[in-house]
């Protein structure tokens, strides 16, 4: 009992010491906006944790300039309504200079519009929908490739490597899934693959009517633009029904939870991803070890992307501080500094943004789930946005 009391006293002492120090420094907050609860929280938490590691790394440098760096994590539950509500709270907190987020394009689009008038810069670790940067907002940037790069990459693999003649295209009726599937379908049709059917579904449990139909049409490949929590169930029921067709999806499948939900049915599943498998990044080993040590769980691609995005943000803020004579910069100054960044030391290589906030050159991976449910990179390609 006595010991606990002593520890509490020590803790209270340390806390008050911390806060008295903080009072002498100006606070700079960086926000993350990603799903921290609900079915996609696995990916969203990776993003937050990755950003946290980047902040830990930069804390001393900010302290030397007289700033106290803080991460504030906001939850969007992968829902546009929740995401915009959180974005409003972010805009209202004047200490927040920039945001790392989001996971879902459907959330990023309205959230960035809420943050744009307040000049709060966003660096997205995950959004691939074309519309995310096509709106040419000053505050919206992303470190990953676009759908019109990701879709054709998947299409090319389906045609050249899988040698498919027929395909069935599905989407989850979100901005992300619809956009990605439309790009894949367009590419397949333009290159002579017969698309036997194409439809959207919000279903999460009962895919049986859909599967009966797909089984009758017997396509070579099924492409499904969706997130792992829905795709996992679909793949499981598909294999239970004895359908042998290859299944492929986008980076929304890039979570070990795909294998957890689909079980052995996940073997052979393919997906394109903008988040490099950590084994493929030569610089990622120490990151992965640190992540494991800090959060007691394995880092995945989106953790690395969260880390990279936060680094882009922090380097941008540092640049803005420097050009502001080492004083606290405005949000607008940070926004300009981030767009003009020449970021180095990222896990995914160096980075520059084009005029609308797309990464000038991004790497796309095609990943396959192996029979033992680990993943391997089946192909790797460099993609560039349509605008320079």
């Amino acid at each position, binding site marked *: 009992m006595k010991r606990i009391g002593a520890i509490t006293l020590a803790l209270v002492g340390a806390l008050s010491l911390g806060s008295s120090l903080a009072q002498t420094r100006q606070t700079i907050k960086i926000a993350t906006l990603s799903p921290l*609860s*609900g*079915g996609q*929280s696995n990916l969203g938490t990776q993003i937050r944790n990755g950003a946290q590691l980047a902040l830990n790394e930069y804390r001393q440098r900010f302290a030397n300039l007289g700033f106290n760096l803080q991460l504030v994590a906001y939850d969007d539950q992968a829902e546009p309504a929740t995401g915009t509500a959180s974005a409003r709270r972010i805009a209202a907190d004047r200490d927040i200079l920039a945001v790392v987020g989001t996971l879902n394009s459907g959330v990023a689009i309205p959230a960035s519009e809420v943050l744009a008038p307040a000049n709060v810069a966003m660096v997205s670790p995950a959004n691939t929908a074309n519309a995310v940067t096509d709106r040419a907002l000053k505050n919206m940037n992303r470190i990953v490739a676009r759908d019109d790069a990701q879709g054709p990459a998947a299409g090319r693999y389906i045609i050249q490597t899988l040698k498919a003649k027929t395909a069935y295209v599905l989407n989850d*009726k979100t901005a992300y899934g619809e956009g990605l599937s439309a790009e894949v379908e367009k590419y397949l049709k333009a290159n002579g693959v017969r698309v*036997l*059917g194409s*439809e*959207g*579904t*919000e*279903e*999460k*449990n*009962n*895919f*049986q*009517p*859909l599967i*009966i*139909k797909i*089984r*009758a*049409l017997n396509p070579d490949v099924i492409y499904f633009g969706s997130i792992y*929590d829905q795709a*996992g*169930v679909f793949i*499981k*029921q598909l294999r*239970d*029904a*004895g359908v042998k067709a290859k299944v492929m999806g986008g980076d929304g499948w890039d979570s070990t*939870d795909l294998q*957890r*939900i689909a*079980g052995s049915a996940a073997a052979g599943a393919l997906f394109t991803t903008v988040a490099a498998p950590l084994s493929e990044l030569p610089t990622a080993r120490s990151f992965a070890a640190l992540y494991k040590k800090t959060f007691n769980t394995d880092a995945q691609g989106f953790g690395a992307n969260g880390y990279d995005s936060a680094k882009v943000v922090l380097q941008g803020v540092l640049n803005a501080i420097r050009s502001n004579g080492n004083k606290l910069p405005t949000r607008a100054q940070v926004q300009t500094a981030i767009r003009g960044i020449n970021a180095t030391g990222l896990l995914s290589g160096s980075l520059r943004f084009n005029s609308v906030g797309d990464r000038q050159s991004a790497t796309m991976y095609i990943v396959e789930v192996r029979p033992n449910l680990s993943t391997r990179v089946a192909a790797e390609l460099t993609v560039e946005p349509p605008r320079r």
Partner: protein
Amino acid sequence: MDIVGPLLVQVLVTGLTLGFVYAIIALGYTMVYGVLQLINFAHSEVFVTGAVVGFEAFRILAPVALNAYLKLLIALFAAMLVAGVLNVVIERLAYRPLRGAPRLVPLITAIGVSLILQDLLKFLEGTQGRFNLVYELPTEFNSQLSLPAFVTSLGVRLSVKDILIVVIALLMLAFLNYLVNRTRVGRAIRAVAQDRTTAGLMGIDANRMIALTFLIGGALGGVGGVMFGLQFGTVNAYSGIIPGIKAFTAAVLGGIGSIPGAVLGGLVLGLLENFLGIISIFGSLFQPLSFLQAIGAEYKDIGAFLALILILMLKPQGLLGRGNTEKV
């Protein structure tokens, strides 16, 4: 062209298995409605609770070397017990204190209870990091039945779990039918359903009979949950919403308060849903029907609700309902 036959047969098989799942859930609605004239909207969550208990049972039993059918039996009993008791608790806390109130009031508390249970389930499994619960079924259940050659030539697939679902449903039905129509307890429940006051004068404890009805209804919901897990392999806190509404629709479609009606309604809906799910294929096969291509599997749920509206307009007492003369 030659795929239409197999397609329709498969729709029949899958539709009937799904229909039996709906039927079992619908029976829970019908039982409670028959006795209290109350739509127990929390029944969807009672059903999901059963599915979650089934999941936990299979998860805990997965490493245990035990006969697969014994595992299923344990999962079913655990789900029946928990869901049944939960339903009794709901009745005691949310409905009984309001028994004299206008009928709208318990309906609102029912919706409240349903929302509370959803988030409670999400919270309980969420603390373990589990949001989509994946049934780890014994492999025996997924194996295909060896069917006669002329059936397999139609491309029909039937797995052990399909048969299990139908057998469980039929056993539950037979048991329920026996209980309600052939036992003293059943007679007491029917008496309370017909006239609670007069039944009380005859020495029947109405509260006990109502609690018993909720226990049976909840247990049926629990069984439905495990069957749902068998059928689809996964469940989450919100899985109950759509099947719950469908089962309610099935109960109304068949004539709410009627046991055979609930079964018929469930089967009709299961078949309708699976048929609508594949209807777009006719559009791609037959030129004059090409407009059907626009009806993706996402529209499968519309059929249930169209059927509900139609039946309410044309035969409000339901397919097998007979006004107020016979309840339960």
